[in-house]
């Protein structure tokens, strides 16, 4: 079976590491990764807990397909209660770290309490220990090229509320502030080396190879996963979404960005006039990934942001679509090199470029309205100010000056300066790169996402833009609540299996199911998997309701409900959330207040 059946419990208060068997009954109901860790989390943590207190827990978790030859089988997730939202936080990452954790023999690591001083966890196969002399010990172990590290940076140490956990230098469990929780526990890093060949066993190797090979062929043959993503990364979307009139610009004042072309995927391929080289060096893959959408970029060494900083002249993780949008369009900046530098800082110091960029956009609007002054910020902050955006990235990472306020996120910032309505957030988390007016289904997806505004909980862009699995008109509302539910449930399955959501551009459940079936013991039919997905969704919802959120939090900012899109094909549109939300609750089997009915709970066993 594809679980290692081992859970590592780390008590940071006592400094102990203990092993316990995985609850296999729960694995049958929740599969792994996102679902299974959520079950553990909900069972062990008081929903009312202060996210930054020692009573909150932090779970690193892999899925049954993590560390297998299934395409993209290298994912892990981090589950906790998020400080940005007060809701369940679940952040998913690739790179190599997750597979290494599996090879060391662990499905899950649960962190409890907080350490009295900075510490990191070292795992070498079944040996796990907390190491106190963080820096010296890590440096020593950096000599080991097989050691994989997931760490927080200065942002997590400084309490930036959207701090990320970064592994393999530039892959991140990026959203919802999981890094802030890790920082609050004085846990600097998890370093792992896995060399066990008996960590887990596939249920049916022959069937697994057949299914995973078939899956790889589907990915290779599909236009998005076989060509678009390897060539342009997720940045393939920048110009598409802009032309569609759904690219939120300048804190969602506009829906099209005149600078989109300059910061999109095509621009990354173009040779710079300054040094004759392209921003993009190559594409890169996470563990086991046959898509390879990752961007590896090298900056123009003469660019103002890095002119005297040779440490940024080498190649590193470049901007993907959401980052390019947030650092760029969201605040009106169209300098690709500046975005790349800010993105390097997000990786190095560990913070989410989406929430950061969107918060800068909100600050720029407050400045534009005269609610923030040059004296308060320390410099001028109009929309489009490239140098100011760069400066704020540096200050936010260090927790200095006005960066301290940017580090609190857009909801707290806008509330402080008297305009909470200008915060482009849901449940306190900033929107990603699609306008909820331009794409009605995405608006509903944002409003109902269990971790606050997010594109990775139900990617309605697929039907509304790409026609996957069927084409739905962006402004239509009919059928979208049911489609969103299907996407949300399927996504929860994918997030719990150990593979990447991007496979679903090409893969349907019928491609994924045989791989899970061959890896895991027991009968994993498509129907059962969808039930698992729905169960996970409802469990997350229950946690949020118990944490104090209500149906009233399934909303969108007034700007999206009242201010029509100004230009482009979606001109005049506002979000029709009111039309869709009641129907969504209905298809979910929830009351008109958004609470799962007793029948729904009984059906799903949550």
């Amino acid at each position, binding site marked *: 079976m594809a679980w290692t059946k081992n859970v590592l419990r780390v008590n940071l208060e006592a400094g102990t590491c203990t092993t316990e068997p995985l609850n296999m009954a729960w694995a049958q109901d929740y599969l792994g990764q996102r679902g299974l860790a959520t079950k553990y989390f909900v069972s062990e943590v008081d929903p009312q807990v202060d996210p930054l207190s020692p009573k909150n827990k932090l779970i690193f978790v892999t899925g049954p397909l993590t*560390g*297998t*030859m299934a*395409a993209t089988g290298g994912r892990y997730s981090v589950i906790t209660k998020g400080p940005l939202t007060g809701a369940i936080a679940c952040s998913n990452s690739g790179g*190599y770290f997750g*597979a290494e954790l599996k*090879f060391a023999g662990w499905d899950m690591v649960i962190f409890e309490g907080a350490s009295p001083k900075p510490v990191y966890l070292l795992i070498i196969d079944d040996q796990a220990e907390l190491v106190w002399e963080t820096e010296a010990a890590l440096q020593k172990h950096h000599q080991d*090229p*097989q050691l994989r590290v997931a760490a927080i940076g200065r942002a997590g140490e400084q309490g930036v509320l959207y701090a990320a956990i970064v592994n393999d*230098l530039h892959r991140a469990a990026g959203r919802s502030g999981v890094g802030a929780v890790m920082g609050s526990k004085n846990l600097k890093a998890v370093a792992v*080396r*896995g*060399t*066990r*060949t*008996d*960590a887990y066993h596939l249920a049916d*190797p022959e069937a697994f190879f057949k299914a995973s090979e078939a899956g*790889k062929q589907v990915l*290779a043959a599909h236009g998005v996963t076989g060509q678009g993503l*390897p060539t342009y990364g997720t940045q393939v979307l920048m110009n598409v979404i802009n032309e569609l009139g759904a690219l939120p610009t300048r804190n969602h004042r506009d829906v099209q960005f005149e600078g989109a072309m300059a910061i999109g995927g095509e621009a990354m391929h173009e040779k710079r006039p300054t040094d004759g080289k392209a921003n993009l*060096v*190559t*594409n*890169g*893959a*996470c*563990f*086991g*990934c*046959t898509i*390879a959408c*990752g961007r*590896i*970029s*090298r900056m123009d060494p003469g660019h103002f942001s890095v002119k005297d900083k040779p440490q940024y002249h*080498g*190649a*590193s993780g470049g901007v993907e679509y959401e980052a390019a949008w947030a650092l760029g369009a969201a605040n009106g900046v169209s300098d690709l090199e500046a975005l790349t530098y800010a993105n390097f800082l997000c990786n190095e110091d560990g913070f989410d470029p989406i929430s950061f960029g969107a918060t800068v956009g909100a600050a720029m609007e407050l400045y534009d309205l005269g609610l923030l002054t040059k004296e308060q910020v320390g410099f001028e902050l109009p929309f489009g100010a490239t140098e100011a955006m760069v400066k704020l990235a540096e200050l936010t990472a260090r927790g200095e000056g006005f960066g301290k306020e940017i580090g609190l996120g857009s909801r707290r910032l806008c509330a402080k300066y008297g305009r909470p309505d200008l915060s482009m957030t849901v449940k306190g988390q900033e929107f990603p790169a699609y306008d909820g007016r331009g794409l009605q289904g995405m608006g509903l997806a944002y409003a109902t996402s269990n971790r606050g505004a997010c594109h990775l909980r139900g990617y309605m862009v697929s039907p509304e833009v790409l026609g996957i699995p069927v084409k739905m008109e962006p402004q239509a509302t009919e059928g979208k609540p049911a489609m969103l539910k299907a996407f949300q449930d399927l996504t929860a399955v994918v997030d719990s299996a150990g593979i990447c959501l991007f496979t679903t551009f090409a893969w349907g459940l019928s491609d994924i199911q045989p791989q899970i079936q061959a890896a895991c013991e027991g009968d994993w039919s498509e129907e059962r998997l969808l039930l698992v997905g729905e169960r996970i969704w409802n469990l997350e919802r229950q946690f949020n309701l118990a944490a104090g959120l209500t149906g009233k939090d399934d909303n969108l900012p007034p700007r999206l409900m009242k201010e029509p899109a100004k230009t482009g094909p979606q001109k005049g549109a506002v979000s029709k959330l009111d039309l869709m939300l009641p129907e969504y609750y209905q298809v979910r089997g929830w009351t008109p207040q958004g609470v799962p009915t007793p029948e729904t709970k009984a059906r799903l066993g949550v």
Partner: protein
Amino acid sequence: MQKSLHLDPNKCTGCLQCEMACAWENHRSFTVAKSRIKVFTFHHEGRFVPYTCTQCDEAWCMMACPVDAIRLDPVTGAKIVLEPTCVGCKVCTIACPFGTINYVAQTGKVQKCDLCGGQPACAKACPTGAITYVDADWTGLGKMRQWAGKTDTNPATV
């Protein structure tokens, strides 16, 4: 026809499917730490480089072995470790100029690429063509062709 593994770093994305395939072939596990082919990441250069034994014709590992545990596979040209004979002295690991024969503490023997008996699993698993198994006489042909394409004898465009 003798064939060779041909490694093209320009096509490698660092996905490690090759390492998993190799580990599976030899250890029935995807644990990449056990792979005989390794992909190295040169982060600040933005390069991924797969590397393994190139099966030297005059194989120093084979010549250095004091117990004759490394033999030539006459069909594939691979130099193969005979595990029952190997005493784990590691002299071969010193003799090899490239570091592509390695000691495995778990078994007390050395391991190296054996070309999977003529059907290398790494090449089959590689999704980008960075690892191919080609006619040994023409491992450079693709690169040669690429450079040939860059020559330009048309004076009008010089």
